[in-house]
């Protein structure tokens, strides 16, 4: 059941297109004022999941709630911003005129939408281009304007599909900062992205969707945590007399480095005590973390490309 803390909540959500199962029993909760990253290969079901949450598609079975309301209701969409992947903004508009139209559809009064449009265009680096038609925009500019329309009505939850696609590094930084500011304001952000580094920087929690099913869900630290290892070097060579109960060590290259895998439920302090017991002093100690990309690729290898 959805709770006060869950902006998005799904239970055993399924979507079938004829014989094709696009989503197969997805149960997911996204907490308020968090950034949630949804990862997965093309065709894994990410966009289908978002479209169900936004009421654009009807699920085959299962339940889904957005802001505590059943998805599909007009009221559930009132407080939502959405930037679709490969969006196509009507090219006969200028930035301000497009925001004016979308603001009107959201029910914003004229003065409010004009004020918000000017503010967002400025924040997203589009100030001074107010008279330019969208057909004259670069891809990055279109992406920024797309983000502006999603933020226009100050939604409580944002769904962003590849929000920094086509944006240069400076622009990406601007967008990241803006999204973090929105989160600080209490906005929940749901991101679909292939830029794993970016997801790692932005997201509090991530999920990886594979063939319509959730392969893993958790905080970034939890997802990459399983891969945590250390690189160590000692002041003298190790011998066969050095036995370790707190960890397993294996040579890591030829520079005297050892890769250390801590035993389950063992902290690094226990290993340091054991090393001192052997009369060894550490010359080098470095935590070797796994990356989201490694996990992602590992899961992708396990699953193969989805249809």
């Amino acid at each position: 059941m959805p709770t006060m803390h869950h902006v998005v909540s799904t239970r055993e959500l399924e979507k079938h297109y004829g014989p094709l199962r696009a989503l197969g029993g997805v149960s997911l909760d996204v907490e308020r004022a968090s950034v949630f990253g949804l990862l997965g290969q093309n065709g894994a079901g990410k966009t289908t999941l978002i479209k169900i949450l936004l009421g654009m598609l009807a699920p085959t079975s299962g339940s889904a709630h957005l802001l505590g309301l059943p998805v599909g209701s007009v009221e559930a969409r009132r407080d939502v911003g959405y930037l679709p992947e490969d969006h196509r903004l009507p090219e006969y508009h200028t930035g301000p005129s497009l925001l004016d139209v979308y603001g009107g559809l959201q029910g914003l009064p004229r003065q409010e939408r004009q004020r918000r449009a000017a503010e967002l265009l400025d924040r997203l680096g589009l100030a001074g281009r107010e008279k330019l038609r969208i057909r004259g925009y670069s891809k990055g500019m279109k992406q920024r304007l797309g983000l502006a329309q999603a933020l226009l009505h100050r939604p409580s939850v944002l769904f962003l599909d590849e929000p920094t696609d086509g944006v240069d590094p400076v622009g990406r930084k601007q967008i990241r900062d803006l999204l973090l500011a929105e989160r600080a304001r209490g906005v929940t952000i749901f991101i679909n992205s292939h830029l794993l580094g970016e997801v790692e920087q932005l997201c509090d929690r991530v999920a990886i969707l594979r063939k319509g099913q959730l392969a893993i869900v958790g905080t970034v630290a939890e997802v990459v945590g399983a891969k945590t290892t250390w690189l160590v070097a000692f002041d003298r060579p190790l011998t066969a007399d050095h036995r370790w109960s707190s960890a397993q060590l294996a040579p890591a290259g030829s520079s005297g480095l050892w890769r250390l895998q801590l035993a389950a439920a063992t902290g690094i302090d226990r290993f340091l005590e054991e090393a001192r017991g052997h009369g060894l002093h550490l010359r080098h100690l470095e935590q070797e973390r796994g990356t989201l990309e490694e996990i992602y690729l590992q899961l992708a290898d396990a699953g193969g490309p989805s249809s």
Partner: protein
Amino acid sequence: MTQPARSPADEPAGRPSPLRSCAAILQDTWLAFLDARILWLLVAAIAVLFGVALSARVEPLPSGRPYLDLAARALSADMAGIDLTRDSLAEVAGRLDGSLSWIVAAEPLPADAADGPATAWSVTLARNVVPVVGRLATSDEIAARFGQIPDGRLWTIREIRETTSRMAAATGSQTWELTVDPGPDLRILWPHRFSLFGDSLELSRPEGAPLGLEVFILQKLLSNGIGGTILLLVSVVVTAAFVPTMIRKGTLELLLVRPLPRWQLIVFTYAAALLFVAGLLGLLIFATWLVTGLLTGLWSPGILLALPTLLLFFAMLLSVSVFTGIVTRSAVAAMLVTITTWGVLFVVGLMHMQVVASRMREENAGKPRPVSVADALRPRAASPSGRPRGSAAERTPFHTTTVARIVEAIYAVLPHTEDLDTMVDRQLMRDFAVGGRLRQLMESPDFQWARGVGLAVAHAAAFLVAACAVFTRRDP
């Protein structure tokens, strides 16, 4: 279930309402409309058309004496209540009062005034009565009836003075000196010449045509013919792209996420497109009214009433375009299907007119052909065969053929564009329909405005509802 998990973020500043949504879609459609280059070509083409029309000269031909003669002849019969388009010649003959009137002399007032529809005349009128059958007329009777014909009031009497001598009266002869002014319908019936580019291109016959008829033809040509057809065709082309553009992938999602029901997107877009085409049609019709008014001095408001009928026709086409656009997602398909629909309606309407004409020919066989007094004044070309057209022995009357029955069956279920066309004609000619031929059109027996409007509205509504149903149920 718990209450919605609303965030501490600021509440959205507004609440969606159908009015705001409609205004937003209106704004969007307006910009899409302005973006269509073909629209500006259309405006340029129509401006050229009106420029050409403004180069026209409409001048009255000298016809005072024939119209005074007509008024005199009409005194021989009591024409009140007689309808020359319906009543038989026997009925008309029964109204003859056993007299014969004619104009002895007529001089414009003042004597050097041009012979035109605004000229007053000094007239000497003579009247002879057939003994036993006829009786002498009083000056009041002549004043009341002179100039009144079934087509309208040609002349009004300013002064009348009887100059009959006692001896002449005894033999049944009467004379009057009259001062007559143009009547309210004289100008519309007065023959005018019509030429374009100054006098370079003569468009009327040497004997001219009644001004009302010329204005009607000009207005029909500008507002319903060339102008209206081009405008509606371009409007079909421009508006055919609206829905497919709106529902293309990447654009549709940006609309579906808004807090309004899907059907509103379709209905508001439809209404917005209709509103802008109404604006264009309104401009065209206003310009036509202005041009014909400037050229002829006749400021007939009838043409302004043609707007709703033309718009209704477009509303029907637009609903087909919207439905096709939603089903196919293609602007080209929407355009082609709409234009094909238009073509089918036109052809079926035309064939149905032939069926009606064939039936009327059979019903009227042997009856005298309706004639207007004003028409009777003008020379008529003899039919080459020596027999009136239409009464020729038909091999098999068209309305009894299988083709005609199929046409009638199809016509029964299609929108009756013929009715809409007749409505436009009636609205255009309502102020000029004092002449026989125009009045015949006004009284076409196969016209029912309620059927025309009802079928058009029903078809437009059916396509629109179907479009909304498909759009609401379909996955993006």
